[in-house]
């Protein structure tokens, strides 16, 4: 059957009634994902993925146990509730646990999140849409890689205290690379777009962007490490923001003291022109995700950093109760092998005032234009948000306000907060970039300009052969 959120909610409520336990929460999700993954110019992995998942939490007082299952039927859910109930008897209390969410009759904000065309996309349709993509890149003398994904996720949360939520969302995601070599490095260009409606994807435009960047990236010069002004495309900036979100904005990291925001709410932590918002309810085409979290709490727009000042952190119900705060609706949904927790899913930076990337470049005397970043890691010194990573898929030297030539990939190591303190330009237009760890969220960023970003290494050296 094709699950809808309302079906899941009915199932969860039936299971709650049948189980007879006093304090239970069920989060249920069913995602159907069509993934057409292409590489080496061929559609090599084409998959229809079913992801049924339900997580039950049972509380005996403040003793809370969790059990999950991949089977979405009443009998299994009732049995899973029983498993969690037995475990809850044997575990210590969770300090601050406030009970599960109550009934809430105020309607949720209904941001548009669903497109029937995406939910119904077929393998044949994905192939039809990809055919010109592969042909265009081949015609350009390049190698293609990427993914066209169409997914539909149905969600529901129900509690014995009367909370009842359901949601349906679709995502059509297209990512494309045009490459000089299939897997050996060299010039590369990237294009990508995310939308709830597959009909809104501009595959030809994004393919052309990838081809253009690849074409202009050939024969890169070797540039020494050093300090450079940088202009980053949204895809590069969001990679940094994802790591900032992981280390900075969630209550557990703040409570533990490792977050840059710990003990610094109300203090300036970065530049005055920096606004960072957790914005899960964005009604525009940049918004994705459900209007409630895995606990059923309505999600909120939270100003995390306002004009460079740390303003707020994100809570679930338990961390909020412990801190004397209110949940921001930021309980992350668990997935197989992933515990969930607390965190951001929809961080947005900016926007700025620049009309284009060219306007940002115009005020760079000597610097770098960076299309994407690769393998960023933000765990070096979380308190300062020190991160390292590399450029990828287009890195260019900028001289006297113009792109001068492509350069080989470089490694940066710098504090993002200090980098954002040196940010003096952002574009008005922003892009939504899918988060790499989730199929349900996207971060939003303009292109940004940061002064004096620190690079400490370079890549793309070719190994020498044995004699």
């Amino acid at each position, binding site marked *: 059957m094709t699950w809808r959120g309302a079906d899941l909610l009915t199932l969860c409520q039936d299971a709650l009634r049948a189980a007879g336990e006093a304090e239970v929460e069920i989060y249920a999700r069913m995602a159907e994902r069509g993934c057409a993954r292409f590489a080496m110019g061929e559609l090599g992995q084409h998959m229809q993925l079913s992801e049924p998942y339900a997580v039950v939490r049972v509380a005996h007082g403040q003793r809370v146990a*969790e059990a999950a299952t*991949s089977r979405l039927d009443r009998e299994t859910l009732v049995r899973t509730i029983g498993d969690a109930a037995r475990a809850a008897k044997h575990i210590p209390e969770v300090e601050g646990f406030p009970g599960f969410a109550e009934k809430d009759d105020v309607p949720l904000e209904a941001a548009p999140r669903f497109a029937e065309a995406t939910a119904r996309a077929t393998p044949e349709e994905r192939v039809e849409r990809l055919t010109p993509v592969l042909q265009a890149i081949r015609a350009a003398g390049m190698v293609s890689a990427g993914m066209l994904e169409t997914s539909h996720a149905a969600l529901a949360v129900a509690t014995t205290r009367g909370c009842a939520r359901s949601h349906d969302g679709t995502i059509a995601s297209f990512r494309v690379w045009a490459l000089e070599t299939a897997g050996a490095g060299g010039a590369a260009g990237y294009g990508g777009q995310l939308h709830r409606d597959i009909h809104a994807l501009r595959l030809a435009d994004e393919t052309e962007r990838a081809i253009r960047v690849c074409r202009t990236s050939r024969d890169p010069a070797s540039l020494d490490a050093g300090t450079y002004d940088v202009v980053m495309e949204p895809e590069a900036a969001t990679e940094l923001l994802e790591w900032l979100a992981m280390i900075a904005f969630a209550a557990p990291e703040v409570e533990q003291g490792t977050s840059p925001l710990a003990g610094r709410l109300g203090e300036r932590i970065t530049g005055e022109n920096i606004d960072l918002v957790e914005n899960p309810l964005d009604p525009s085409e940049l918004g994705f995700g459900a209007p409630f979290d895995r606990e059923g709490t309505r999600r909120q727009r939270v100003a995390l950093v306002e004009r460079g000042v740390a303003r707020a952190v994100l809570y679930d119900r338990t961390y909020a109760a412990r801190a004397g705060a209110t949940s921001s609706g930021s309980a992350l949904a668990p997935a197989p092998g992933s515990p969930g927790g607390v965190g951001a899913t929809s961080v947005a930076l900016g926007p700025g005032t620049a009309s284009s990337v060219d306007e940002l470049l115009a005020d760079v005397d000597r610097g770098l234009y960076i299309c994407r970043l690769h393998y960023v890691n933000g765990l070096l010194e979380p308190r300062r948000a020190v991160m390292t990573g590399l450029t990828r898929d287009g890195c260019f030297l900028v001289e006297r306000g113009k792109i001068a030539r492509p350069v080989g990939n470089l490694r940066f190591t710098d504090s993002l907060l200090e980098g954002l303190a040196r940010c003096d330009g952002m574009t008005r237009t922003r892009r939504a970039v899918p988060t790499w760890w989730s199929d349900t969220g996207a971060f939003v960023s303009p292109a940004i300009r940061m002064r004096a970003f620190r690079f400490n290494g370079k890549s793309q050296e070719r190994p020498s052969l044995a004699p």
Partner: protein
Amino acid sequence: MTDPGPTAEAALQAALGWLRKQSDVRYAEVRFVEGAGEHLRVRDGRPEQVATEATRGVGIRVLGAKAWGFACTADTSEGELLAAAARALSIARASAQIARAPVLFPEQAPARGTYETRVAADPFAIALETKLGALDSPVRALRAGDPRLVSAEAWMDWTRQTKRLLTTEGTDVTQRFTFGSCGMHVFARGDDGVSQRRSYPCWQGGDGFQAGWERVGALDLDGNVDRIKDEALALLRAPACPAGTRTLLLESSQVGLQIHESCGHPTELDRAMGSEISLAGGSFLQPGLLGKLRYGSPLVTLVADATSDGGNGTFGWDDEGVPAGKHALVEGGLFVDYLSSRETAAALGRGSTGTMRAEAWNRAPIIRMVNVSLEPGVAGTLEDLVADTADGILVATDRSWSIDDIRLNFQFSCEIAWEIRRGKRTRIVRNPFYTGITPRFWNSCDAVCGPSEWRLWGITSCGKGDPMQVMHVGHGASPARFRDVTVGSTS
């Protein structure tokens, strides 16, 4: 060993039988997977996570006339499995419309048999209170005695997975795995508000293994509390790791992660050929370098061994029915082979090294590391190696990791480092990192400690694929020494 049960078994056979009858099916595999998991985490004296999970379903991968298709279902009834088989075939047929040439997929002799992790004490039979107690005790001890010890956490995870693989070639294997991992860490915070973390036994996620509850006792969390507390506190007042070009000693677990990022991933043949661009990138180890590239010094022999006892990357057969084996990837410093699949190896005219694995029933198999390990050397113990080093830096316990999209330029930061002067560890230094270029780094290896220091580590969260799949992999290593490495501090 559990099996799918009579109803599901008949459904699996029915799906396979239907696929055999389709004229354009060249190969198909029906993979039943049933899993159970338990995840326990205690933080600062309270349970942060007490969770179990159960999963069950079937993945069907079909090679049609020209292309692959994959579909899956959590419903193991005959009707649903037949429908999933039909979906997989229809996807293969749709993909064939734009395939330029048929996939090359050599035949494989059918495999039959069973594999099971050796378990002395079943972790799922141990009382929950006992397991939580084993975590709560070190957590409380880690926080005791000094107010600067601001947070402590300990965790353990158990996974049991039963996997039944049936293929149209006649392969029929059943495997039952028991995976575990366990670890702890403590944060100390100084007057400046900056925290330092020390972990045991290794980086985040702890050490993974295939074994039972007996491994938790052997880890001896309680016995390592005082050491990591002392080191965390010492780091608060330690100077920054001095920058420069230095002789670098890596303790065993750091060698393991170095192998993972700079040997394991770049020797994945799908990555080298270009199949993984959409998440992870390519590889500098291109097929033309096989047998020619001096990847490391003559002391460097790296093997992919899916038969290592208790390894996180150990199994009986991969998810294409290829038996587990042991293959040198780098022999005496020379790059000689890849981690491969039947399809990718055939493209090079080679045989598969048997590394195709899927995270779960609802994912298609891709090439994954097995246990990729550095063979031990003759440099004795870590302390022998320190004594043999006039001037250097010894780093331990990874904190961050990053490597470029063809696996050349890497950078790791670690939790702790010691300066070595005239053969002795001297002061502790903080926030160390080191960076390099993969073949230059491995060619600078001039000492590898001996078998007594060799330990098989397990990584529980290796990510690859798109959508990302997380896999258990292993790395055996002794401490090793590298010359002329760029070292610095993030401070």
